[in-house]
């Protein structure tokens, strides 16, 4: 599997990372280098093997359905790059 420039552009779009056209070729080369190297996993027989999702040491715990935190609006907003009153702001998305 080898990535063409259009695929690299598509991935960058999915990841919402702007990339310069001038970076595209270098990026394509690096990603293909890494992909070529991880292709080695194709030789492993994985028939009947369960996927490992986390280490499984901790079972998800139940707790009472109660508010345990909150009332921290100012702290939550304290790092917002552009808060307006008690709100985050974004560019207009609805015409």
């Amino acid at each position, binding site marked *: 599997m080898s990535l063409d420039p259009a695929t690299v552009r598509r991935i960058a779009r999915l990841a919402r990372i702007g990339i310069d056209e001038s970076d595209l070729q270098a990026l394509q080369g690096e990603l293909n280098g*890494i992909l070529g190297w991880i292709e080695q996993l194709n030789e492993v027989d994985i028939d009947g093997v369960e996927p490992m999702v986390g280490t499984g040491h901790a079972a998800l715990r139940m707790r009472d359905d109660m508010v345990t935190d909150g009332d921290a609006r100012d702290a939550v907003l304290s*790092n917002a790059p552009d808060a307006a009153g008690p709100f985050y702001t974004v560019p207009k998305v609805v015409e």
Partner: protein
Amino acid sequence: MMLTELTIAAAQAGLKRRDFSAVELVGAHVAAIERLNGRLNAFITVTADEAMDAARRADAVLAKGEAAPLTGIPLGIKDLFCTDGVRTTAASRMLEDFVPPYESTVTANLLRDGAVFAGKTNLDEFAMGSANINSAFGAVENPWKRDGDADTVLVPGGSSGGSAAAVAASLVMGATGTDTGGSIRQPASYCGIAGIKPTYGRCSRWGTIAFASSLDQAGPMARTVEDCAILLQSMAGFDPRDSTSVDCPVPDYRAACGRDLKGMKVGIPAEYRVAGMPADIEATWDKGIAWLRDAGCEIVEVSLPYTKYGLATYYIVAPAECSSNLARYDGVRFGRRVPAPSLDEQYEATRRAGFGAEVRRRILMGTYVLSAGYYDAYYLRAQKVRNLIRRDFERAFQQVDVLLTPTAPSPAFAQGEKMDDPVQMYLNDVFTVPASMAGVPAMSVPAGLSANGLPLGLQIIGRSFDEESVLAAASAIERAASFTHRPAIRAEVV
């Protein structure tokens, strides 16, 4: 002996006896940071005034005879742990001005036990890297020098490179690190100090900026195994705010350091004897085997057949989780924002400006392996291979109590080396990644010097939640190696 040369264990005793004050102890380290950080760049943020205030409070506590385990001990905190009111950057332009309004559980535990924070240590951006060259705040210099070569700047390893350099150069007595694929152990090896990645679930991840959540684990770095045990004692413990935190008692780690090893079975995995391993690393490993045999251990050859797939598996799983975790940096709620006319353009402009090259590469790789049509071929396959790697360890630990391997395939290399090809850089983690994939505890302890005079670490890997055996074996190696070498650049000489 200068105060910066003391171990944490010795400093605890000295403070209690009032041989010196916390103000003197912390002051000596703050002065060392002021002298050396300009060169080493081990700290992104130095909190000297806050540290001296904390030292004065520590002296008041000590005067009342109420010392907690770490009262007055100056530590460095990897700048990946959120610290209340103190800028936390993850070494990224994205979080250049981020001031957390809360304290991570691990650092809160250390503060509860009286520790004094001297500052936030440098790292690879978002903990992605093996040489601490991927920091938006500049590279860290390893305080060690090759024999007869005072000019070449060596890397401290990564991603916890600032913590490792700061501890090695005696700028602090110990530091926190995080380890996702080797980020505590490999820099510990490169800088001639000890560092342990505990079992996944042992230390809370709450308030630690996430990289790959199924792998990330906090741990201590210090100049001795016992000091690591003292720090881990405070850092570890159940935390209901981390759903992967494990609710099991934290044993007495310091006591484990002195444990008799008679009858302990030590596995030597054949697959770690890779082709082209440098002779000095092989020789150090062989010495470690002999030391443990002399300490009464039984040496057993074991096989971990899926070891060779560890790195490739890691470089699917970790970027996949990274791409998901780092989606939160959207320029809306916190961190950098680059304004643009539409929301999508703003995301793209913000993330283009905020992320460095390696972080961008991993997000893109992760996005690809999780994308429609490729998920099964890459991500699901990697999760299955990860299970095979874990089974390797489970099988080995039916035969033996711990495994002994080298920590890294080379000593510290120079800035500029191995930097053209990402895959070459990834290979530095070949011996540390498998234990991360399995979630088992592993520690690096300094064991000798390379042919050109640089520290080499040995790695001890243990069963899940058996950090005690890891610490015991590491202590035995530490005693036998009597590694007293110190780096060229350190508080006592510069």
